[in-house]
């Protein structure tokens, strides 16, 4: 299969990622009970199967939010099926006892008591036929539990994507920089700077908690623009004065972090409107978090840029052989400038998203993020010597890191141990990739 071969060659890390997912799926298998509407549908089907279409039913649920959804949706389905819901007991065991006493007094016979898994173990239901002989011998029914990995629950999977969105978005710019043969250590600090700037702009200039949507967008754009200016400055130092990128961006990392602390006055800025969390916590498109949608859109655009556009070719050429690119008429300084500006701008965007997720701006955000971002890019197969790397690879790299972190959280690995494991896994993943390339690489005489 040529498609499989291409996938293997370009994105071998996919298999490491799948292997990790499989591993964490196996180790996090546990009992799951359905809740809410899903549970109601299942119980309704069970009732219909065992008692025909028209039994007498008592509903008994606790006082959790899911329980109310379960009760109301079960009541609706049962009525539609033609069953008679004799009573609905919500709250505590004593509410259920009261309901049963009322029903017994009225001489109602019950066929089924439908309840939540928690209510099923209530003492009041232990011996219904002896305590309330008037009700007959009702059958106690609760949603059946099933075995499923905690890792593969849809909330958890969304959680992973949501957590990695910021790192993955910044990794787009980092991939471009690394493909040119450079590095950008300033992204973590620029993230913090952007979060603080966005929050300050909103607090001081857009009306704080009463800020309008347009005002907030302008504030975020201003913060991103400020980060881009830092990126442009780095690019200028690198191209005009030929200072190594490592040193320039190391300096900018300190400058950015220091500025962020100064501007934040050493504390978090939280005077932000409720609606500010739309970007970071909202989920408007088919249940996907907005940050994840934005991330996917940016990756699609970046992939097209790198594989189909002139600028992408130039980035690869500059990283592959700068002198050959220059002598082929590539405007090397402009290409490098673009890479560092994009990297800084995306770090700024990451800051806005993080401020939105946490509904505040703080200079402590993004600490060590540059390292996670670089790790994602490298795990994704880009070469630190430049000229090679792909956007989908970086996305896979980011997910690999997220899955490892999430999996260890689910399996209660201590956070210090997590760092050790993460470090070793990154090394192992890249080692595997290198060996695979060496094996596949054809040497010529």
């Amino acid at each position: 299969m040529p498609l499989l071969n291409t996938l293997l060659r370009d994105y071998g890390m996919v298999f490491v990622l799948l292997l990790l997912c499989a591993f964490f799926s196996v180790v996090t298998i546990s009992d799951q009970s359905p809740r809410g509407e899903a549970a109601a549908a299942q119980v309704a089907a069970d009732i219909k199967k065992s008692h025909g279409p028209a039994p007498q039913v008592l509903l008994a649920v606790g006082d959790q939010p899911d329980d109310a959804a379960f009760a109301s949706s079960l009541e609706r389905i049962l009525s539609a099926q033609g069953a008679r819901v004799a009573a609905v007991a919500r709250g505590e065991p004593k509410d259920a006892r009261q309901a049963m006493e009322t029903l017994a007094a009225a001489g109602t016979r019950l066929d089924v008591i439908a309840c939540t898994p928690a209510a099923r173990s209530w003492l009041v239901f232990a011996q219904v036929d002896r305590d309330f002989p008037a009700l007959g011998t009702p059958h106690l029914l609760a949603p059946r539990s099933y075995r499923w990995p905690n890792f593969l629950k849809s909330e958890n999977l969304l959680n992973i994507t949501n957590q990695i969105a910021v790192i993955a978005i910044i990794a787009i710019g980092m991939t471009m920089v690394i493909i040119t043969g450079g590095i950008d250590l300033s992204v973590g600090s620029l993230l913090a700077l952007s979060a603080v700037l966005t929050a300050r702009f909103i607090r001081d200039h857009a009306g704080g908690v009463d800020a309008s949507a347009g005002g907030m967008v302008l504030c975020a754009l201003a913060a991103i623009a400020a980060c881009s200016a830092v990126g442009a400055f780095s690019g200028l130092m690198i191209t005009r004065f030929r200072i190594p990128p490592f040193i320039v961006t190391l300096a900018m990392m300190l400058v950015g972090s220091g500025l962020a602390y100064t501007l934040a006055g050493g504390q978090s800025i939280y005077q932000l409107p409720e609606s500010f969390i739309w970007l970071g916590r909202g989920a408007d498109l088919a249940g996907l978090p907005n940050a994840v949608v934005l991330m996917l859109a940016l990756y699609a655009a970046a992939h097209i840029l790198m594989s189909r556009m002139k600028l992408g070719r130039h980035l690869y050429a500059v990283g592959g052989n700068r002198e050959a690119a220059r002598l082929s008429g590539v405007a090397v300084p402009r290409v490098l400038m673009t890479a560092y500006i994009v990297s800084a701008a995306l770090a700024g965007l990451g800051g806005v998203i993080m401020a939105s997720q946490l509904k505040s701006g703080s200079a402590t955000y993004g600490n060590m993020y540059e390292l996670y971002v670089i790790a994602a890019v490298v795990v994704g197969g880009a070469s630190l010597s430049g000229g090679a790397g792909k956007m989908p690879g970086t996305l896979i790299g980011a997910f690999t890191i997220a899955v490892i972190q999430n999996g260890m959280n689910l399996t209660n690995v201590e956070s210090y141990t997590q760092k050790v494991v993460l470090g070793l896994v990154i090394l192992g993943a890249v080692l595997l990739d290198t060996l695979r390339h060496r094996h596949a690489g054809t040497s010529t005489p």
Partner: protein
Amino acid sequence: MPDPPPPLLEMSGIVKSFPGVRALRGVNLRLAAGEVLALLGENGAGKSTLIKVLGGAQSADEGAISLNGRPVTLRSPQEARRAGIAVIYQEFNLVPGLTAVENIFLGRESTRAGFLARTDERRRIDALFQRLGADFDPAVPCRALTTAQQQLVEIAKALAFEARLLVMDEPTAALTAHEVDRLFTLIRDLKRRGLGIIYISHRLEEITTLADRVTILRDGRNVGERPIADITRREMIEMMVGRELQDEFPPRTPALGEVRLEVRGLRRGRAVRDVSFDVRRGEIVGIAGLVGAGRTETVRLLFGADAREAGDIRLDGRPLDLRSPQDAINAGIGLLTEDRKHQGLVLAHSVRDNFALPNLDRLSRHGFVRQPQEREEFARYVDRLGIRIPHQEQHAGNLSGGNQQKVVLAKWLARNCEVLLFDEPTRGIDAGAKYEIYQLLNDLAAHGKAIIMISSELPELIGMADRILVMHDGRLTGEITDARHATQEAIMHLAIA
């Protein structure tokens, strides 16, 4: 009568395969002590693989190697070195930041009580340098040395550890004529001291003057072995290419038009001093001179690759202000650099990407590359130039020198350049591909292009150029208008000035 002593080196039935390629198919080679054996063959004939096997850099799949009659296995460069085999590859193995002394003793530093015995090392090097006639300071970093000096360091490295067998791969590729003379004197001296020397070169004149015997490889097999006295230059070429050769240079009937390129008072530091000349439509102008005479620097100024301090450049009467290669490319000037690997190609990228690089503005719309058009256009040039590649995604680094040069040429032809600057266009290219490149040059000239060609191979300049400019020490020191009847002596006389 006693048996003759076993030869210094005997390699027999050497087979080596790479994925998809059988590089060596049973090669035999003998070398006696005190003998210079020339190893000849086109690129891809298996010479490099054979010496890598000998140097321990690659291990043979089959075959036996014996030294002085004793079988040896050479599994690593260290083992080969211990066995007394020193290989000097075309790209030197020197650490640029270390001095000659440090490089020579690298990995085998002599120590006294754990400290480097520096005076001891230095004394040995001084003795060695004197023997080699090396008159430079061994305490300066190697990056500050000329190519010839670095080569001497490599030779000193081999001798410092008592090599009995010295392999030299294209040792004169980057040397000036004078340096070549000194190298030959040295090789003859080493030979007298009983070293066996395997000498690889594309320059047949060198082989004729230097070697005792020649072994010729083609397609991974031996195709001939003769004492040098019993073989003509023509026979050597014919054995290499496997067919009878008519002429080294294609016939050329120049049709010169009006002046296209005018260069006046070009200047940059000490490298280029007040250089003025013209190139006509349909003309091939050769530039001769020693390495460092300012030839490469001159064409780089014409391409905007370096900034000029003074000078006017006009193309078809229009003055050009070239501040970057982009400006030159937009004006219709193309440069084929002398160093394809470092300046001409992105080796790790596909040949098609390399081809497209200077043409992307033409091949893209609204920033998007029009890939079908790109593929089709490249295919046309692959056809036209006879570039031999399995597919367009082939990495440029995996091609032979001739094919690489054709890819670089395709880059500029697709740009429709009016002025083409060729810096050593046939360096490291085998005889068959050279002829094709010459034909392309003629073809371009016939289409009215103005061509400048730098070459260190004087026969090539005489055979191809209509006019030859000679440079020395940054200046034009002469012009030979009737290039066809120039002699190498006349050119050298001007080049040494």
